[in-house]
Structure formats: C-alpha cells, structure tokens
C-alpha cells in the first residue's frame, strides 16, 4: 500500500533542483543497487513517485514505507542534505536547530556579493589599464614565446570573454551538481587538443582559410549573452520568480550537461572566440608553414592559458562545495554580468553597430 505525503523543501535555488531532488530520492530508495549498499531498514522506504513543485516549494512523495511523516522527512533530508536541500513536514528543521528554516539567508548574501564582485571587476580593469600586460615580445614566434603570450593572454582582456565564459559555466555546472571535475577535465582537454590540432591545420594549409572577423565577433556576442543569462541566474534573479520551465526542456539541458561531448565542443569553440592574442597566434601558426610548428605554437599558447582557466573552473568547484557556496555563486554572478556587459558592448562596437563607449 503506497501513501502520498507532501513535504516542504528549502534550498531549491535552481531550476534543475527539481530534477536533482527527484533523481536522488528515486535512485537512493528505489534502485536495487543502493538498497544493498544502504542499511536494511531503508528497504521499507520504497519510493514510488516523487514530484517537486518549485513554485510552492513542496515535494510530493508516494511511498510504501510504514514510517510516520516526521521520520520520513528526516530520512529524505539525510539523502539530499549534502546537496543543500532540507525536506520537512512544516518548514521547520527538525534535524539540527529546530528553528524555522531561514528563508532570507540568500538575500543577505547578495549584499555581500555585489561589493565583492565589483572589487574583482575593478581590479581586473585596472590591471588592463595599467599597461603591465603590454609587454612587447619581438622576434620569431617560438613555442616558448607563445607559452608566455598564453600566460599574459589568460589575465588580459581576453579573460573577459573566455574566462568569463569558463567561470559562468563552471559555477553553473557546480551549482547543478553535475559531476563537475569530469566536465572541467573534458573542457580543458578539448581546448588543448583543438588548439593544437587547428594550429597544425592552419600551419599546413597556410593562407588557404582566413579567420573570419564577422564569425568570431558574432560568436563573441553569443558568448557574452550566454554569460549575461548565466550571471543573472547565478545571482538569483530568476530564482525569485522560480520560473519553472516545462520539464522537457529541463531534461534537455540536463542531458546536455551530462554529455561527454558538450564540454569538449565548448573547449573546441574557444578557439574561435574573439581574443586578440588568440588571433595573433593563429596568424603566427598560419605563417609557420608546417603542421608541426603550427601545432606546437597553438598547443604552447593554450598550455599557457591553462593555469588561470583551470584555477577558475576547479576553484569554483571547490568553492561551490564549501559552506560559502551561496556567496560564491552570487559574487561570481556579479563578476560574470560585469564581464558579459563589457564583452557585449565591446563586441557590438567591434562590429560597428554602436560607437565604442570606452577604451581601456
């Protein structure tokens, strides 16, 4: 005999939380593999059906368990607590404090997050304006110089677009609790490999293909729009309204996030993002005249950009799993929105659609 219970759920900060909670509760109690791993009592918690309503912040669970509703809430909370959710009968946290679960904790974080994000943005733009990064590197482009150029590029204005994209995607992936390390590993591998191979191809075929300005400019604008959306999402603008998209779309996004291929392709795509340094290196690879030298130049360049980008993605993963997670997500949201706006305005100016608003 299965009975249907309705619980309150808190901590549902993202749209895909719905799927995550439903998956955790279904998986951990329904599948036979985890039954064997779990304690024997859990066998009675057989969950038949889970449905999360983000707008009402409730979760409906159909279970065959004979336990009472309070016990069930505890059992379910234990399963999802590590992901930051609390399931309760009446909105009170029985497990720890017994107090009403604070609802406005997230709102406090935003007031800390905006100044933190702004400070990072100002430091970044001051660095650009200081001219420290305009080190001239003369002579032949060798793998060593292209490695150094990669190091410089990774903290230059290119960071606004490539780094901003990496940060926003990483934070989003960590927030949605997808197996993030694997995703980042794939992204960076995809980036290194595609830079090297495309560099080699450029060297091999020489000037046969030009790097199209229009193409990379449009790609840059798309990237900055993605950054703006993800940034707003991280700050939590959308969470307030709890816009619940049809679950078909959810599943689609989730499938994309889980796909092995997606991070590889995004890594590959960064080759074409507008970045003066990348474009210069592409020209250098182009004029290098052979597959091997083009390969080495672009590989060394990508390797040079790796430390900062890897720090961004793996750093956000470790922050995301710490207790400062809400603050981190919101701060990086502010940073990403700032960089996204900057990249968008600059990209539109580059296309000649608007007058350049600023000049660093």
């Amino acid at each position, binding site marked *: 005999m299965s009975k249907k219970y309705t619980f309150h759920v808190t901590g549902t900060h993202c749209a895909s939380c719905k799927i995550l909670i439903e998956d955790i509760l279904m998986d951990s109690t329904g599948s036979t593999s985890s039954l064997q791993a779990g304690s024997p009592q859990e066998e009675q918690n057989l969950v038949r059906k889970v449905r999360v309503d983000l707008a009402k912040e409730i979760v409906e669970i159909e279970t065959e368990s004979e336990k009472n509703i309070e016990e069930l809430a505890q059992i379910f909370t234990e399963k999802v607590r590590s992901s930051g959710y609390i399931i309760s009968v009446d909105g009170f946290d029985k497990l720890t404090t017994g107090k009403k679960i604070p609802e406005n904790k997230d709102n406090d974080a935003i007031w800390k997050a905006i100044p933190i994000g702004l400070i990072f943005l*100002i430091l970044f733009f001051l660095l650009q304006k200081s001219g420290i990064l305009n080190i001239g590197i*003369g002579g032949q*482009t060798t793998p060593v110089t292209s490695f150094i150029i990669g190091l410089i590029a990774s903290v230059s*204005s290119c960071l606004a677009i490539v780094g901003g994209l990496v940060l926003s995607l990483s934070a989003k992936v960590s927030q949605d609790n997808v197996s993030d390390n694997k995703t980042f590993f794939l992204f960076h591998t995809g980036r290194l490999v595609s830079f090297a191979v495309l560099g080699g191809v450029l060297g091999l075929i020489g000037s046969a293909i030009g790097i199209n300005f229009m193409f990379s400019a449009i790609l840059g604008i798309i990237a900055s729009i993605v950054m703006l959306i993800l940034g707003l999402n991280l700050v939590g603008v959308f969470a307030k309204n709890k816009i619940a998209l049809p679950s078909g779309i959810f599943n689609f996004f989730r499938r994309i996030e889980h796909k092995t291929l997606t991070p590889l392709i995004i890594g590959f795509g960064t080759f074409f993002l507008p*970045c003066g340094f990348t474009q*210069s290196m592409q020209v250098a690879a182009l004029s290098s005249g052979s597959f091997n030298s083009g390969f080495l130049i672009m590989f060394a360049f990508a390797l040079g950009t790796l430390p900062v980008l890897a720090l961004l993605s793996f750093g956000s993963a470790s922050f995301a799993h710490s207790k400062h997670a809400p603050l981190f997500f919101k701060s990086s949201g502010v940073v990403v929105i700032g960089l996204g706006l900057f*990249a968008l305005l600059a*990209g539109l100016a*580059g296309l000649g659609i608007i007058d*350049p608003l600023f000049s660093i």
Partner: protein
Amino acid sequence: MNKTVSIIIILGLLVAMGIVFFGKPNPDFQSVQNVEIKNGIQYITINARGGYSPKVSSAKAGIPTKLIMETSGAYDCSSSLVIKSIGYQKILPQTGKTEIDLGIPKAGEPLQGVCGMGMYNFLINFS
C-alpha cells in the same frame, strides 16, 4: 552585512569603476607629431600595441592620404584592426608597418578604427 553599509560601498565602487573606464588615459599622446605630407601624399602614423596611440589625431582633408599602422611585438587585440567606414579588416603583423590607403578623405568625416574585440579604438579627424 548591513544593507545600508553595503549600498554605500556599492555606490563607491561604481564611482571607482566609472573613473577606471572614463577617466583620462595615461599621458596624452596627442602632442606627438604623427601626420606628415611627403610628395603630395599625407601619411598618418598610428602605433598599435596595447591600444592605439595617438588616440585622436587631426589631419588635412582633400589630399591623398595613407594610414600607416606600426606594430612592434603586438599580440593583443590592437593587432586585429577593423576600420568599418572603409571596410578594412586585417590582423596586423606582430612587428612591422602596414600601409592602408584612405583615398582622399572629406572634411568632417572622421575615421574610426577599432580592434576586433572593440575595447581599443582610435579616431582621425579631417578638416
């Protein structure tokens, strides 16, 4: 954190950011003589590396004009040059001089060059 304190800090930071963006750039290069007329052709020289200098130049209208882009070890955005009004798009060589024919510019039609990502620009006024 106190909301009021935070809002004050945010406003302060926004002002600081405004200064970073719109404040005067490092010493003005405008005094540099970058326009010269040789054999009836006007040459305007602009340096590209970490931005363009001079940022604003003035030249004569009505005579054949060539723009010379000088680069020395430029790997940043300024090496990918876009001049929309004459449909010019090119990635400048890391080091070297690139000559761009501007034809005979008309008075009151300034020429604007932007780097591929749009964060650096320069302007030439013709009069």
